């Protein structure tokens, strides 16, 4: 009987691992659909709208990749993943890429066998507390009950933060952001901690956002970015350079409004020409058509447009560009040259 359990587990892994082998690009093309892992629901970053259509900052990356590869930004099968299930889903081949506010860390890049293709949001971990609690600093949280999503880097940062400051706390493990929000609003925890962007997005959905304050301390670096499996470098290149194309497009002033016009004929800026495929053969080098970047940009706009539309200052989430401004504006967002 002990054996049957062992082999049962082996069967599942064996079958699942078997699927992960073939070249991802060919598989996606054959399927005609991109399997993209996203968050289970985080306003602004990835959530279905009233019609069930997924939208958000991370979702736009999936759509851009689908547009570049399949020429159809809607050919995406969104797979909602929790903090605990996301890595298994990617490692097993259930999804082709993961675009779900996931922090780039050493062990995830090496030991877990993933490739982070870049950073689409520079974030840090913060705390949100009810204003009524009268807490003005995270250092005042000694003895507090803190809601925390399990299986995340924030969970580890939280343990380290309280340990370093010689404070005690009671973790309340939760599975998804929605659950955390419900527990926090019910008062089952004094504070909720996750990436500061996530806190802003969550607070925007509260009935009275003003009753809650995000504490000033940012206790960690959280570079969030899309990732793919280790080993399929061609596929990693496609996802990496699609993200870079969106970023470069903003830098060179290519927007969803003027991309078709710019791509119609070679213009005066050779970098834009190479990006949009009117000059050179960059598309062929990664196994795509020459106008792949044009399609990706047309899908949802450039990086700046995606930011402003989903999480920018004119949205309920209201995040400033800050660290996520272009390098030319003093931020960290920077795409390597297209040549």
């Amino acid at each position: 009987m002990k054996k049957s359990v062992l082999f049962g587990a082996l069967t599942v892994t064996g079958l699942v691992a078997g699927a992960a082998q073939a070249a991802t690009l060919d598989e996606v093309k054959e399927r005609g659909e991109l399997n993209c892992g996203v968050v289970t629901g985080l306003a602004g970053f990835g959530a279905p709208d009233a019609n069930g259509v997924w939208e958000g900052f991370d979702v736009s990356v999936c759509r851009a990749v689908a547009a570049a590869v399949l020429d159809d930004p809607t050919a995406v099968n969104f797979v909602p993943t929790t903090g605990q299930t996301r890595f298994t889903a990617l490692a097993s081949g259930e999804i082709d890429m993961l675009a779900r506010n996931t922090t780039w860390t050493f062990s995830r890049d090496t030991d877990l066998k993933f490739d982070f293709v870049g950073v689409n949001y520079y974030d840090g971990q913060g705390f949100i507390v009810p204003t009524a609690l009268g807490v003005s600093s995270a250092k005042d949280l000694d003895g507090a009950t803190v809601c925390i999503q399990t299986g995340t880097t924030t969970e580890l940062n939280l343990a380290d933060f309280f340990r370093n400051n010689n404070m005690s706390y009671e973790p309340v493990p939760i599975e998804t952001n929605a659950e955390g929000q419900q527990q926090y609003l019910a008062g089952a925890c004094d504070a909720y901690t996750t990436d500061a962007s996530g806190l802003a997005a969550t607070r925007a959905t509260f009935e009275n956002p003003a009753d809650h304050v995000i504490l000033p301390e940012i206790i960690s670096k959280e570079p969030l970015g899309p990732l793919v499996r280790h080993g399929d470098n061609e596929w990693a290149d496609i996802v990496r350079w699609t993200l870079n194309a969106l970023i470069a497009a903003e830098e060179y002033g290519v927007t969803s409004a003027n991309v078709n016009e710019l791509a119609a004929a070679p213009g005066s800026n050779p970098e834009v020409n190479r990006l949009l495929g009117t000059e050179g053969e960059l598309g062929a080098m990664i196994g795509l058509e020459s106008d792949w970047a044009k399609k990706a940009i047309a899908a949802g706009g450039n990086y700046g447009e995606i930011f402003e539309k989903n999480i920018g200052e004119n949205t309920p989430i209201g995040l400033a560009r800050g660290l996520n401004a272009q390098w030319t504006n003093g931020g960290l967002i920077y795409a390597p040259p297209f040549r």
Partner: protein
Amino acid sequence: MTTTSEPPKAGFHPSQLIYDTRYRSLTIQVIAFIALMLGLSWLVSNTVANLQALGKDFDFGFLGQRAGYDINQRLVEYDSTSSHARAALVGILNTLLVAVLGCALATVIGVLAGVLRLSKNWLIAKLMAVYVEGFRNIPLLLWILLIFALMTEATPQPRDFREGGDAAMILGDTVAITNRGVFIPAPFWGAGAGILLAVLLLSLVAIFFWRRYAHRTQEQTGRILPIGWGTLGLLLVPVTVAFLALSLTSGRQVQPVLATGASEGMTLADYAGSQQAINACTVPFSTESLNLRRLMRANDLRFNLVPVADGAEAIAAAEAGRCNILSLPASTIAASVPAGAVALSDTITRGNPVEFERPILGGFNFEGGLQLRNSLIALWLALSLYTGAFIAENVRGGILSVSKGQTEAAFALGIKPSRTMRLVILPQALRVIIPPMISQYLNLTKNSSLAIAVGYMDVRSTLGGITINQTGKELEGMLLLGLFYLVTSLVISGAMNVYNSSVKLKER
């Protein structure tokens, strides 16, 4: 004579393997077995090859690495610097805790509901039918989530217990029901707790012999001794007497509070004012520690507790400067006061053999006492109610399996109805009830892995959840998890089988 002939002694032909019914089934079994083994070896080699292709190795070294995450409910010492193996142990103990609590409550609920469903009282019988059908036919996960939602949404937050809030503690300010759990008083063991425990054990032994004596007397003479009252008396009287005696002799002893760097006759409040921080060396879970904390709380002091094993270690810690206040357990020699320590004018009493610490509202939450987290309560209640419904049906079936003639015969002999049930019906029903009960216990234990739905940190959440996620060792983690549930289930069914063979029908 010569007409009788020997049966022809034919040699064995390979074709007999198929055409001879004596060998055919054997042939089929051998072929099926080989096919099965080939299938298995294909699965194993496929897994090995794919793991290699993914660049993942198969080893259990991750168990020794630092876990890095915190767990709220821990029955053994654990913090974020402990290893993944330790985290798994914490999870295993949490699983076993909820399984044991669940099995016990489910049995009580199940037996009650099963008996009451056969009641002649129409209302009670129908109510029990509604309970059984309601819980049996709705998925367990829904019940867990429903009870958890009720516990968190319908109960007050700790801060509502502050002055001006609309919530209050119950049972003489000893129990607080909050949306983070139920806080109840926690027992602390003082001097003489060992004696108390010994008395309790002796009472249990005495109860055993009393019951045996009573049964034997009844069998031999027919005289019925008061078993229930005797048991109750033996259980309560010696322990109460011992508790009172110990309390009177040592419990009210006054004990000094020692402080380093204090001057003679200082009060605790004055001393606290002269120090940067108060660090108190105490033996955890001792009544001295409890009484010292009560004193410090009464003075509105903020303090850190430095746990020490005994008086000698407390003195060493005070001399090393790790703490500046200490209370010495009774076993310490009174003269061996640490260098530079002076008794304050405030004193504490040694405390009774057992004292209870009440939960007190602290900064964010209740402090002290025992916290039964909502996740534990929701999981426990849901598992018990759900499994109880199945057990109720087993019990009902068992009772119905005993023929009505048994009851009538017992009544004809003039045996009271309650005794009829206990001495005639149930012993016969048990042999029908026990075997399905074993699988209900197994179900409950395995169903406890739904704990993650309410954030209860069982082994599925620690080893099978966070550890796997942080280390990427899915296969190893899941194998260990499977092994744990397998071993637990086999142990439970083994133990229940032993009990089953003791109650089953014995034929001579």
